[in-house]
């Protein structure tokens, strides 16, 4: 590792250690701290903090998986298996868990059990078929381990490292260090290209940076992996909005609302898009939906009042403004609007 890189990691490790010390009961911090320790090679200390995270939140999936990966790194196969088996029992259709167990069994020479798990991984997530084929481990429904496949096998359990780069990338992005964040997130996506969240995070950082076409590309990659990732469509809509390409913005926001019908904010944004295109009927509909979800959504109510005013529906406009003044009685703008139509 280059010294400059090393110092970034060390600085973040120190920060998280301090935070974990201040907030010892935050499972998230314990998990992050343990992950950083693990990548630094401090396996025993990492184990202590993963276990602490799990004591605080026994259902914390990320910490469970990280601990299993740690044990696999430490070649404590039995321990890793003990963690993964109950998880797979809880989530029998989780392809990733079957995949990890398959890898564990392959590493320990239990090919028969590995085959069962890999078959299940493929059954629940078709992506794994291509994955094993590409690695040369899967041919005609059975496992093949030649020299090339053996070599590939040694590199397969890289998930915690991908998580690590993802975490570092997000941490740097929070500090506004976007260029460094992009480097880390690219590493994460490179290690685990099928993980939609890495592409989504990369897209978000490009979006913050103002690199819109790269952001669009990454969100589209994320959506290809997980087409039900509604916020990905919303982010694409915001990016097209920034580019003043409202036709595309509208298309993506409609999709985002369709996938997340309970998000008042998305209905509000969709209403703005309809309103801008003078599709007032649809704008009314979306604003009312936003208000049904969150009756205190002030901006939606202001927009609704203004729309009623446009339609010369004074009574309805007054009703909306009065509702707003019940929440914010000192809102001079609304007072003025109400006075004008009273």
């Amino acid at each position, binding site marked *: 590792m280059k010294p400059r890189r090393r110092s970034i990691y060390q600085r973040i490790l120190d920060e998280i250690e301090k935070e974990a010390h201040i907030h010892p009961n935050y499972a998230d911090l314990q998990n992050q701290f343990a992950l950083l320790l693990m990548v630094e090679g401090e396996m025993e200390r990492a184990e202590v903090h993963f276990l602490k995270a799990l004591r605080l939140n026994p259902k914390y999936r990320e910490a469970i998986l990280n601990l299993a990966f740690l044990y696999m790194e430490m070649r404590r196969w039995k321990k890793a298996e003990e963690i993964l088996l109950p998880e797979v029992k809880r989530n029998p259709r989780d392809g990733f868990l079957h995949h990890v167990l398959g890898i564990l069994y392959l590493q320990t020479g239990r090919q028969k059990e590995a085959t069962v798990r890999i078959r299940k991984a493929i059954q629940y997530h078709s992506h794994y078929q291509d994955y094993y084929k590409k690695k040369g481990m899967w041919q005609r429904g059975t496992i093949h381990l030649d020299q090339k496949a053996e070599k590939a096998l040694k590199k397969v359990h890289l998930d915690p490292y991908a998580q690590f780069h993802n975490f570092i990338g997000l941490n740097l992005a929070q500090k506004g260090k976007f260029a460094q964040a992009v480097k880390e997130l690219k590493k994460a996506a490179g290690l685990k290209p099928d993980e939609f969240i890495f592409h989504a995070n990369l897209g978000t950082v490009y979006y913050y940076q*103002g690199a819109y076409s790269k952001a669009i590309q990454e969100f589209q990659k994320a959506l290809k992996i997980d087409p039900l990732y509604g916020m990905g469509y919303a982010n694409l809509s915001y990016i097209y909005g920034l580019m003043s390409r*409202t036709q595309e*913005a509208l298309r993506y926001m409609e999709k985002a609302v369709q996938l997340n019908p309970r998000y008042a904010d998305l209905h509000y944004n969709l209403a*703005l*898009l309809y309103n801008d295109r003078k599709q007032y009927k649809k704008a009314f509909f979306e604003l009312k939906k936003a208000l049904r979800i969150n009756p205190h959504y*002030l901006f939606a109510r202001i927009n609704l009042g203004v729309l009623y005013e446009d339609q010369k529906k004074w009574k309805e406009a007054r009703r909306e403004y009065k509702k707003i003044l019940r929440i914010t009685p000192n809102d001079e*703008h609304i007072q003025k609007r109400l006075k004008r139509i009273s």
Partner: protein
Amino acid sequence: MLKEDFVIQANIRQMLTRTEINVSQIEFGTVRGVVYIRGTFQFSRSDPSWDSDKAKDFTAQTLYSLEKKIRRIEGVSDVIFQLNNWRKEKGHWFHVKIIKREEKNET
């Protein structure tokens, strides 16, 4: 021609996420070019070495600069801040204590 509200809204969203302002504590909306910002204005992280006066000065400066930036967005005709911990009076930002509901009820 007025810039579309959605475009303004998207610009504000990006502007806020690029700062250290705690966006989970504020809401924003755009109504025919008028931008509304409501909620509690605070930072997601602060420098522990700062005393309360320095932190207040920095927050006030951030509010001035935020308002300036928002007004520079094409199509924005006004910016209305409805913050419960900061108030602008005669062109100056003042920190105001948040009165909790229970305290209010007691008086």
